[in-house]
């Protein structure tokens, strides 16, 4: 490759930085949605690069379901402190306590859907007009149709059939009062790109991405981690296995994979030979063929 042409990773990095700078300039009060997962860790690094040597011109916000892996929460707090960013935590438990949402019932109960209300309430409360998300188009078919700048109406809703065309690199962030945008700088990244970027930038990630021994239960052909949030039915049993997680979601709906990958290099090899998508292990996406689209329309991430 000639030095006058960027590699693909340099190109998508530059594109993400460009998008972040556009948001900081076009909006009054952006926020970066931060989960402690690998995609949002990349987002934080890109934001640092976009505004260096200045500090991030926005806060981080975590929508905390209360069902997170403790390792992720610990990592989240450490990272926020390290980069001296302000971190807002919007709690699903508080939304439940206030009666804004009701907890799901039954053995497969999850707080996944409840996050939407907490997220939209927090956006309104803090008057954020743009929220960065780490979603990628390769993750899921409804996301393949997302824009970089994705408009949300005053109810926080997405209208997939009526999206603004996005041409060249001219991003139209104009909106009326009360509306906001979701912005996805990693739109053109794949799972492999994210891992290669983490390796290249030597980014720290939560330990649950690496192989470790853990008690898990097989349910609906998914391996779920032992936690206080999961009730076993009579026939189910916990088993100790060597596992790791490909995504970081709630303990109630994020499936583990059996794996011995203990280093980034090994994870990359595993991702390269994987025959199942990373979200294949997410019960929240499996509820129906259009589960993601339906949640996104309501204002989900």
């Amino acid at each position, binding site marked *: 490759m000639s*030095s006058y042409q960027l*590699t693909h990773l340099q190109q998508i*990095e*530059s594109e993400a930085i460009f998008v972040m700078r556009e948001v900081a300039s076009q909006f009054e009060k952006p926020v970066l949605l931060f989960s402690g997962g690998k995609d949002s860790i990349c987002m934080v690094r890109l934001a*640092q690069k976009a505004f260096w040597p200045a500090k991030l011109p926005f806060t981080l916000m975590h929508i905390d379901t209360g069902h997170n892996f403790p390792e992720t929460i610990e990592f989240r707090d450490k990272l926020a402190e390290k980069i001296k960013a302000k971190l807002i935590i919007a709690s699903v438990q508080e939304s439940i306590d206030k009666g804004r949402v009701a907890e799901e019932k039954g053995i497969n109960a999850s707080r996944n859907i409840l996050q939407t209300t907490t997220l939209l309430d927090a956006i309104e409360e803090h008057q954020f007009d743009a929220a960065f998300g780490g979603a990628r188009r390769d993750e899921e078919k409804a996301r393949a149709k997302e824009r970089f700048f994705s408009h949300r109406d005053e109810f926080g809703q997405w209208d997939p059939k009526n999206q603004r*065309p*996005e041409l*060249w690199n001219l991003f139209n962030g104009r909106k009326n009062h009360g509306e906001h945008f979701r912005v996805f700088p990693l739109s053109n990244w794949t799972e492999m790109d994210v891992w290669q970027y983490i390796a290249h930038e030597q980014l720290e990630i939560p330990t649950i991405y690496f192989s470790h021994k853990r008690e898990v239960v097989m349910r609906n052909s998914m391996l779920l981690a032992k936690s206080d949030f999961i009730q076993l039915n009579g026939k189910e049993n916990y088993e100790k296995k060597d596992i790791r997680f490909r995504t970081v979601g709630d303990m109630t709906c994020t499936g583990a994979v059996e794996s011995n990958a203990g280093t980034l290099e090994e994870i990359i090899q595993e991702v390269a030979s994987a025959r*199942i998508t990373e979200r294949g292990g997410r019960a929240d996406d499996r509820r129906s063929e259009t589960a993601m689209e339906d949640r996104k329309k309501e204002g989900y991430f």
Partner: protein
Amino acid sequence: MGSNNSPTTKEYMNMDLLRFTTAGSVDDGKSTLIGRLLYDSKAIFEDQLEAIERTSEQMGDSYVNLALLTDGLRAEREQGITIDVAYRYFATPRRKFIISDTPGHIQYTRNMVTGASTANLAIILVDARNGVVEQTRRHAFIASLLQIKHLVLCVNKMDLVDYDEETYSKIRADFDEFSSKLEIRDIHFIPISALEGDNVVEKSENMHWYNGPTLLYTLETVHIGSDSNQVDCRFPVQRVIRPQSEKYHDFRGYAGRIESGIFKSGDEILALPSGFTTKIKSVETMDGKIEEAVPQMSVIITLEDEIDISRGDMLVRPMNQPQVGQDIELMVCWLNEKKLIMGGKYGLKHTTKDLRCIIKDVRYKVNINTLHRIEDDLSIGLNEIGRILIRTTTPLFYDSYKKNKATGSVILIDEFTNETVGAGMII
């Protein structure tokens, strides 16, 4: 391709990126073609394949409908059509690919223009049984209008014409004749069968008369290195970076992306619109100083002298300046159901500049099937293309779109709905 198709980390770091757009309708076998590229390059996963197998069965399809991979929205699945541009990704050890897959039926022009605006290459599919048809010409015209540098004409369904060389040669000659009117210089022709896999990834056993490369090989090797403009230095300022911290007390940098040309420290530059000249002190990133900043890089430029520069301004070379003006001629593709209003005022975005404009004149409309000019009906509605004159509230620093996509493109915005209603290419 086999099982060793996954790039190693070292290869991965050196891969470049090809963005291509695919045009055509379902009937041309476009989805089958994309499905095959994704499947053979292992970009389709088992759970995705199982999901579409299930859905195909539910919908009563007798085969696995690969279109369901890209048609992800509920309405698309229900109606069996593609509504919107879908983006798909795959990689081989040589390159990463981004496909913008645009629908054939509905909102055709709007979606193809959107998908084509960022593409290096366009694939146009022709059904070997039908040859070059109106739709083929329309696709090629839009690719040419958007200044896509490389075009691959795939003559598909060769299996249905007994892999006949003469059929292929005739289609090729027909297209050659038409494309001489266009501005695309690099055109490739490949006879394929997307369904049977001939010449897509593997060389065909059925067409020994064809000595050219397969489609995948063409996509992997088409030379895009010299497509970017490395001559005309253009740096639209996105943001002024002033940390005001102890360590970087006097730091004042201009953040933006190099749109074209090469920038390096010591270069004399001119700031527009102020007209002040100074020298580049350094080109910076968080990872360190850059010797030579090349097109597409997001960087921070610091200058020797403190001059007044803000978002929307542009850094250029004194001896190579863009045009400056308020009366701009452009080709516009209309993207909205509400027609273009003669004399109407619109929001305008050009590079990092936000301003307004008024529509002064509609010169003509283009019949996108015949390429003829229409001068007796000047109303420009959804999916129509025409040449217009606008006047902007403040001067633009621009180049023709042909010379420079970044400084030659604009979008028009409805000031009431905030929707993006027009895509403009400066003449």
